[in-house]
C-alpha cells in the first residue's frame, strides 16, 4: 500500500506543478483579455484549482508535509539474527542465522561479514600476552575488529579442517563485487544511512558547502514579485528585482514591491552561487521569507571532480593479502588455514575465498563459550536508487543491531554534480564502517528468552460440589497448567500456586463482597498438597470445606464466600524457567472454578417396585432407610450393582424448580410413567434411575433447583460407581475369632492410621484364628451392603451345610483340637425380585434376560490354637521367653525343630537298640554272607 500512495502522491504534485506552470504562463494573456493589466496571485489561482477539483487544503497540506520528509523515511537494509539454541551451554554448537531485509539482491548474493568476539578479546591497542595469543588473529599486535572477523571467518572457511602444509593446487580465488555477487557492470556508489535523520550519505570525502551569507541568514534562490505599471506597459522589460531601473527587458515595467518568494536552493559551482530559477539571496528564514534579503555572491563547495567517492568492503583481511581480490594463493591459504588442494575446504559449495568474504553465508555456527558475542555486517545493494545519471542503486551495509550513527563518521559534507543539466547536491560521509561493528555485537543468551512464558490452565470438573459435612465427599478439583512455549522441559519449570476464594466472579472486595487467599488454610486442613515446586504443573483441591463458625478461611467462615450456595475459587500459578545465563522467563495465569456448597445432599435409596394399574412402577422404600449412607466410601461415591433401581431424593425445603441430569442427559421422572413419588408436569425432589451399566461404569447425577429465597441456582450432584458385587466372611466377635496376624510393615505413605511409630500390623483377610472349644461366629458381608437383603445364602463348614444362627450369620463351637482348622464357605445368589425385574422392563424397557441372578462365594479358614499356650499370662519368665521366641528368626526355629526331630529319632533308635537283646546269629537268617564279598 505504501508504495502505491507514494506514487499517487508524486503524481499529484507533478500534476499541480504542471497546472501551475500553464496557469502562470498564460497570465499575461489573461490579463489582456480580462482587462486590468495586473498579475494575479498564484495562491488565488491554486485556490481556484482546489475548488475546481475538490481538493481539501488541509489534506493537501498534510500530503505536502509528508512529501517534504518522505525521502528520509525510505526503508534501508536491515538484518535480524536468530540463535539456535536460545540458551546455549558452553561447548555446545550454536548457530546464528541472519535474515537480511530490504536488499535488492537475493540472500545468496550478499556478503555476510561475521565477526566473533570471545570474552577475553575486547578491543585494545595494547593487549596482554595472553590476549595476543588468544585474540590477535592477524598478528598486528592489536586487538581490533579485524581479529574478530578472522576468528569467525576461519571457523567458517575451515569447517573443522586441520591445516596441513601442502602446495597450492586448487583454484579457489574469488573476486568480490561491491553490492553483491550479482552486481555486474553496475557503477559502485556506496552509502550509509543515518538512522536518526533518515538521510543517506554517499561514502566520500567531500567537504562542507559554504555560502557567504551574513550570520543569521541562509542561502536561497528567490524570485521577486512586482506590480506591473499599466502606463509603462510598453516600456522594455527590466529586472524584476529592480523595476525602476528602466533597462531593457520584458515589455513590462514593474513597480518595486520588494516582495520575493523562494524558488529553490542555490548550487555552488566554481565558487559562484547558481540558481536555476531566481537569484541567489541570503534571507533570515527561507521558509517564511518574502523579503528579498541580501545578495549572495560567493560560495565554496566541492564538485564531482574534486571529491573522492569510495566503496570499501568490510571483509576480514590477513596481513599482506586482500580478501575477495580473486587471488587466493598458497601463502594466503596457509594464513587462513584452508586446504590448498581443496577449493572448497568448508564443503559448502563456495570457493575458499568466497567463504572468507562471506558470500551467501547467512548462517554461522561455532562452539559457544561463555561470554561470546557475535555480529554480522551484510553488504548488498539496497532498493534505493542513487541520483547519479546511471543504473546504480545505493550499495549499503546492514548491521545486526542497526546501530551505526553518522556521528562515528570522520566528517560529512556534500558535493555538486551536474546531472541532466542541473547542479545536484549529493551529501557525503567520510566513514569507516568498521567503527560500527563493536556496537552491533549480539549476546546469544539475550535473544528470545525475554519473552514471557505462556501459561494456560484448565480445571475439572466444571462445577464441583463442596461437601460441608464431615463425610468429606466433595469433588476433587484438578487444575492443570500448560506452558506451550517453554524452552526447558516441564521438569525444569518452577510453579508457584495460589488459591483464592470469593463470592463474586470478579474477586472483588467491598460491601457484601468477600475475597481471600486461602492457600495456607487449605494446606492446614490437608485439602491441598504442595503449592510450590519444580514440575508442579498440576494441583488438586479436595472440596471438603467445612461451613461452620469455627472453620475460618481467610479469617471468615465459608458462608461469607457463598451466595446462594455458590462460590468461586481462583487458582493462580506463576511459572518460571531459569537459564544458565541467569535469564529468567516468567509467566502467570489463573482459572476460576465455580463451585456449589450446600449442606443438602442427594440421598440414595434402593427403590421398591409398586404395581400401578397393570404396570410395575417404582417408589421410595416405605420403611427402608437410605443406602450408601454409612461407609465413608459409599457416602463419597455410592457403590451399586447392575440391574439395581436407585431412588434419589433431595430435601425439598427451600428449593423449587427441580431439574435432574444423569451423565449430562436429562433424567425425567413422571408420576404416570415412573413413580407415584414423582409428579407430572414438572420435576420434583424425587427421581429414579436403573443401573444398566457394567462394572466400572459410573453415573453422575446432578440436581439443579432454585433457592426460593434468593432465586439463586443450587446444584447438587452425587456419583454412583457400578461394581461387581462382593461377598466376604467376617468374624462376629474379633475377640473370639480374629484375623491371623501375618506380620508387620512400615507405612511409607504416612497416611495409615493405628500404626505405632509407622509400623503397621498386617492381618489376613481369609484366615482367622480362635481357641479350641470356644464358640465362634461369622457373618456375611456384602458389597454393596444393601445387596445382602436380596441374597440367598448357604453356609458350609468343612463341606457340610449349616443353618444360619441369625440373618447372614453362623455360630458354632470350635471343638477341634488345637492346630486343627475349619474350612468355612459361604455361597450366595443375588437376584433381583421379579417385581424389580418387571419394573426395569415396564419403566425403562430393560429386558428380563438382562437381569439374571448373580452367584457369589467366599471361603475362609479358621485355625485353632491351644488356649493355655497362647493365653499364657504375660508376666514372669514366660513373658520374657515368649518375647525372646517371638524375636528368633523363623529359620532358626525351623532348624531347631529339625534338630530336635533328629535327636528324637536317634534317641528312639538308641533306646530301642538298648532294649532289644543281642541275639544275633548270622546263620539263623539264612541269607547272610554267602553272597557277601570279602571285606578288608
Amino acid at each position, binding site marked *: 500500500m505504501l508504495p502505491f500512495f507514494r506514487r499517487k502522491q508524486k503524481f499529484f504534485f507533478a500534476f499541480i506543478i504542471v497546472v501551475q506552470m500553464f496557469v502562470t504562463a498564460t497570465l499575461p494573456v489573461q490579463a489582456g483579455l480580462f482587462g486590468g493589466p495586473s498579475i494575479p496571485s498564484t495562491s488565488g489561482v491554486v485556490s481556484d484549482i482546489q475548488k475546481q477539483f475538490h481538493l481539501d487544503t488541509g489534506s493537501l497540506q498534510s500530503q505536502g508535509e509528508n512529501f517534504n520528509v518522505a525521502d528520509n523515511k525510505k526503508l534501508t537494509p536491515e538484518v535480524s539474527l536468530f540463535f539456535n539454541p536460545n540458551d546455549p551451554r558452553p561447548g555446545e554448537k550454536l548457530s546464528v542465522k541472519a535474515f537480511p531485509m530490504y536488499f535488492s539482491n537475493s540472500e545468496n548474493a550478499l556478503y555476510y561479514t561475521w565477526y566473533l568476539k570471545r570474552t577475553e578479546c575486547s578491543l585494545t591497542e595494547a593487549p596482554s600476552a595472553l590476549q595476543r595469543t588468544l585474540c590477535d588473529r592477524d598478528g598486528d599486535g592489536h586487538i581490533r575488529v579485524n581479529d574478530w572477523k578472522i576468528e569467525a571467518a576461519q571457523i567458517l572457511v575451515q569447517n573443522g579442517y586441520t591445516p596441513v602444509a601442502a602446495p597450492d593446487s586448487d583454484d579457489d580465488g574469488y573476486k568480490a563485487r561491491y553490492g553483491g555477487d550479482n552486481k555486474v557492470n553496475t557503477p559502485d556508489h556506496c552509502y550509509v544511512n543515518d538512522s536518526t535523520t533518515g538521510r543517506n550519505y554517499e561514502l566520500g570525502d567531500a567537504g562542507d558547502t559554504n555560502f557567504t551569507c551574513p550570520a543569521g541568514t541562509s542561502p536561497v534562490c528567490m524570485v521577486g514579485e512586482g506590480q506591473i505599471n499599466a502606463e509603462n506597459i510598453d516600456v522594455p522589460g527590466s529586472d524584476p528585482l529592480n523595476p525602476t531601473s528602466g533597462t531593457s527587458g520584458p515589455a513590462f515595467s514593474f513597480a518595486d514591491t520588494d516582495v520575493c518568494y523562494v524558488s529553490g536552493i542555490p548550487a555552488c559551482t566554481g565558487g559562484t552561487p547558481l540558481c536555476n530559477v531566481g537569484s541567489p539571496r541570503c534571507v533570515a528564514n527561507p521558509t517564511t521569507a518574502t523579503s528579498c534579503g541580501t545578495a549572495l555572491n560567493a560560495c565554496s563547495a566541492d564538485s564531482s571532480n574534486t571529491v573522492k567517492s569510495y566503496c570499501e568492503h568490510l571483509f576480514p583481511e590477513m596481513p599482506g593479502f586482500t580478501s575477495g581480490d580473486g587471488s587466493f594463493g598458497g601463502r594466503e591459504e596457509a594464513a587462513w588455514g584452508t586446504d590448498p588442494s581443496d577449493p572448497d575446504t568448508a564443503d559448502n559449495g563456495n570457493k575458499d575465498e568466497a567463504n572468507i568474504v562471506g558470500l551467501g553465508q547467512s548462517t554461522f555456527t561455532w562452539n559457544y563459550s561463555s561470554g561470546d558475542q557475535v555480529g554480522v555486517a551484510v553488504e548488498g545493494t539496497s532498493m534505493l536508487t542513487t541520483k547519479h545519471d546511471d543504473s546504480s542503486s545505493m550499495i549499503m551495509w546492514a548491521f545486526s543491531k542497526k546501530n551505526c550513527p553518522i556521528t562515528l563518521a570522520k566528517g560529512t559534507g556534500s558535493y555538486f554534480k551536474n546531472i541532466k543539466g542541473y547542479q545536484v547536491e549529493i551529501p557525503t560521509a567520510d566513514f569507516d564502517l568498521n567503527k560500527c561493528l563493536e556496537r552491533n555485537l549480539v549476546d546469544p543468551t539475550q535473544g528470545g528468552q525475554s519473552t514471557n512464558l505462556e501459561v494456560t490452565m484448565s480445571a475439572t470438573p466444571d462445577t464441583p460440589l463442596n461437601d460441608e459435612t464431615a463425610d468429606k465427599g466433595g469433588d476433587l478439583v484438578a487444575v492443570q497448567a500448560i506452558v506451550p512455549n517453554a524452552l526447558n522441559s516441564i521438569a525444569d519449570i518452577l510453579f508457584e500456586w495460589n488459591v483464592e476464594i470469593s463470592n463474586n466472579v470478579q474477586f472483588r472486595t467491598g460491601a457484601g463482597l468477600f475475597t481471600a487467599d486461602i492457600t495456607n488454610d487449605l494446606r492446614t486442613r490437608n485439602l491441598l498438597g504442595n503449592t510450590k515446586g519444580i514440575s508442579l504443573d498440576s494441583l488438586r483441591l479436595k472440596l471438603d470445606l467445612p461451613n461452620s463458625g469455627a472453620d475460618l478461611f481467610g479469617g471468615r467462615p465459608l458462608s461469607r464466600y457463598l451466595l446462594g450456595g455458590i462460590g468461586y475459587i481462583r487458582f493462580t500459578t506463576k511459572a518460571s524457567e531459569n537459564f544458565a545465563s541467569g535469564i529468567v522467563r516468567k509467566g502467570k495465569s489463573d482459572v476460576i472454578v465455580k463451585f456449589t456448597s450446600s449442606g443438602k445432599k442427594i440421598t440414595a435409596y434402593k427403590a421398591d417396585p409398586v404395581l400401578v394399574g397393570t404396570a410395575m412402577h417404582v417408589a421410595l422404600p416405605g420403611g427402608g432407610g437410605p443406602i450408601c449412607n454409612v461407609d465413608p466410601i459409599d457416602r463419597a461415591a455410592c457403590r451399586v450393582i447392575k440391574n439395581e433401581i436407585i431412588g434419589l431424593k433431595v430435601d425439598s425445603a427451600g428449593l423449587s424448580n427441580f431439574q435432574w441430569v444423569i451423565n449430562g442427559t436429562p433424567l425425567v421422572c413422571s408420576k404416570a410413567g415412573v413413580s407415584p413419588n414423582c409428579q407430572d408436569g414438572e420435576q420434583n425432589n424425587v427421581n429414579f434411575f436403573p443401573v444398566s451399566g457394567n462394572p466400572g461404569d459410573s453415573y453422575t447425577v446432578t440436581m439443579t433447583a432454585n433457592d426460593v429465597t434468593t432465586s439463586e441456582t443450587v446444584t447438587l450432584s452425587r456419583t454412583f460407581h457400578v461394581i461387581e458385587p462382593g461377598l466376604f466372611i467376617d468374624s462376629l466377635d474379633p475377640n473370639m475369632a480374629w484375623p491371623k496376624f501375618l506380620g508387620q510393615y512400615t507405612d511409607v505413605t504416612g497416611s495409615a492410621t493405628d500404626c505405632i511409630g509407622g509400623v503397621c500390623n498386617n492381618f489376613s483377610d481369609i484366615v482367622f484364628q480362635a481357641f479350641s472349644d470356644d464358640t465362634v461366629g461369622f457373618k456375611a458381608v456384602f458389597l454393596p451392603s444393601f445387596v445382602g437383603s436380596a441374597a440367598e445364602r448357604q453356609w458350609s463348614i468343612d463341606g457340610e451345610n449349616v443353618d444360619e444362627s441369625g440373618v447372614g450369620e453362623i455360630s458354632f463351637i470350635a471343638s477341634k483340637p488345637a492346630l486343627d482348622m475349619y474350612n468355612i464357605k459361604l455361597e450366595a445368589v443375588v437376584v433381583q425380585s421379579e417385581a424389580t425385574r418387571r419394573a426395569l422392563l415396564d419403566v425403562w424397557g430393560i429386558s428380563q434376560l438382562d437381569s439374571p441372578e448373580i452367584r457369589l462365594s467366599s471361603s475362609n479358614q479358621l485355625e485353632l490354637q491351644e488356649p493355655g499356650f497362647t493365653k499364657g499370662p504375660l508376666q514372669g519368665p514366660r513373658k520374657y521367653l515368649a518375647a525372646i521366641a517371638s524375636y528368633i528368626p523363623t529359620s532358626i526355629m525351623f532348624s531347631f525343630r529339625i534338630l530336635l*526331630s*533328629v535327636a528324637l529319632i536317634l534317641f528312639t533308635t*538308641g533306646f*530301642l537298640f538298648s532294649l532289644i*537283646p543281642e541275639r544275633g*546269629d548270622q546263620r539263623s537268617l539264612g*541269607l547272610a*554272607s554267602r553272597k557277601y564279598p570279602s*571285606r*578288608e
Partner: protein
Amino acid sequence: MTKTPFSYRRFIVTGLLVLFSLGFLYFSEQSDTVNPLFQTIVVSIAFFLVIPFLYSKMVLKESLKNMGWQKGNVWLGMFTSILSVALALGTVLLFTRFTSFAEHYRLPNIVEREFIWFILYELVLVSFTALLYEVFFRGLIELLWLRDFGLWAIVIQTGIFVGLLFLSNDVSWQKLPILLFSPLSGVIAYYSRSLWWSWGASWLFFFLTDVFLLVRH
C-alpha cells in the same frame, strides 16, 4: 574292617531308623514362614547326612567304614565306576535318541547361560546332592542295613529310592540320570565297599550328562 556277625537287633533298629527318616521326609509339610530352599537343605542334611553318621557312631558305636566311608577296594572301585559311567552314558545316549528326554531335561537358566554358575552348580550342588544320596541310600541302607542281603541289597536300596520318588510324585525326565545311576552306584558301593567311588562315579556321570545335554542344546 572286620566282618561282623548278623545282628537282628542291629537289623531291626537300623530298619526303624530308615523308616523313621523316610517317614518324616514323606509326611513333613513345608512351613510357609521359612524359605523352601532353606528347608530342603536343612532337612536333607539332617536326614541324609547327619542321622546316618550319628547313628553309626552314637547308636551302633561302629566305625564309619562300615557304611562305606573309606577308600575300599581301589581296583574294583575304579573298574566298576568306569563300567557304570560308560553304561549309564550309553543309556543316556539311547534315551536322548529315542525319547524326548533331551528336550525335557533342562538345567537352570542361569546355569545354562553363565559358565561360572555352571561350574559352581556342578561342583557344589550336584556333588553335594550326590553325597547325600550316597550316604543314605548306599551307605546307610545298602551297606549298613542290608549288607547281609548280598546283591539283593542293591535291588532293595534302588527300590526304596525309586519308591520314595514315586510316592512323592517326583518322577520326571529330570530325575532320569539319578534313577538310572541309583542301581549302578549301588553296584560300585557294593563291590568297592566304598562310598567314595560311588560318589565320584555318580558326580562324574551327572557332570558328563549335563555337559552332553548342554552342548546338545
